[in-house]
């Protein structure tokens, strides 16, 4: 039996932490801003909430690798294609364990090949300190989307960018330090 290596995404893994970010979402030229909140509520599931700056809830999801529940969504965002896209994005963003099929190095980065929901994934880590820098989801040879992370300490992401290449959708998250 071959035991595969498992690599972890540490950035949303701690159930003690309220992960709170300022969010800027650009979708087909429209800009939507607000507050993005993620919290691990049990072993398998995260709660994801997006609110306006005033605190009105725009969407509220519960999401695991196998389950998905919409607790609330405003009419303006209640579109099947949008919900499906966000579900897939958040599922990948929140996924902790990645089974690695093979790996190679490229410049200062190690590239680890994995897969998730029938898509090829490539995880990019810094060679010097193994910080997770990027997850790229591809189909055949084209990148479909990437999630880029900037992290000071390697366990918490200060900024995150989810960039789609086949849709005009970009989600930028900036951690905000509270008092």
């Amino acid at each position, binding site marked *: 039996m071959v035991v595969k290596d498992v690599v972890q995404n540490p950035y949303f893994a701690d159930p*003690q*932490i*309220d992960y*709170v970010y*300022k969010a*800027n979402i650009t979708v087909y030229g429209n*800009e939507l*801003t607000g*507050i993005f*909140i993620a*919290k691990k*509520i049990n072993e398998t599931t995260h*709660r994801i*909430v997006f*609110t306006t*700056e*005033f*605190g*009105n*809830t725009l969407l*509220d999801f519960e999401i695991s690798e196998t389950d998905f529940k919409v*607790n*609330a969504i*405003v*009419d303006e965002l209640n579109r099947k294609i949008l919900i499906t896209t966000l579900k897939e994005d958040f599922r990948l963003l929140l996924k902790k364990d990645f089974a690695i099929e093979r790996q190679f190095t490229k410049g200062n980065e190690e590239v680890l090949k994995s897969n998730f929901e029938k898509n090829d994934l490539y995880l990019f880590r810094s060679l010097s300190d193994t910080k997770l820098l990027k997850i790229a989801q591809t189909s055949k040879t084209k990148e479909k989307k990437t999630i880029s992370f900037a992290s000071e300490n390697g366990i918490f992401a200060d900024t995150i960018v989810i960039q789609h290449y086949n849709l005009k959708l970009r989600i930028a998250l*900036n951690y*905000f*330090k*509270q*008092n």
Partner: protein
Amino acid sequence: MTDAETTSFKQSVNAVAKKITTITTDFVQYKHMDFLAKDIETSGKMYFKEPNSLKWQYKKPYNYSIVFKNGKILIDDEGKKSSHDIGNNKTFGKINKLIVGSVSGNMFDDKEFTISFFKMKTNYITRLLPKDAALKKYIKQIELTFDDSDFTVTQVKLIESSDDYTRIVLKNKTLNAKIEDSVFSN
């Protein structure tokens, strides 16, 4: 509160609201959700000028300001500016009216809300339940806290249908000081 007390309270609030031409105040906003360890705290400055110019300027932990003026919304998000019409968005128009009304205390509108009044130890609480179905979907209840010495609003609490809420505390309030129009140009 008795009917007489309610009438007297409403008269006092309306008398104060009528004399308000401008409000400048600091605010702290707490977004409470039951599943979070801590409320999400943001803060800044709020400016209001009669008849209906309003600016919320968040300074911590990010710079974001939103101006409501003449049916328009002007946003400055960390220097990135945009403008939107409220016009075709009825719900947003109502929420806007509600925010302006909350701050100035001028929102005892029986057509829009079912209203009840409570006298507490050092303040009054007004509880408003929206009647409009579209608004009701987002906001279950609004609670305005009034200082019992000057009858101005000190806290606004917006409770969502999930029972999560946003609580905005107004402090260091200045009434009727001059505010330049440029404050609302964003």
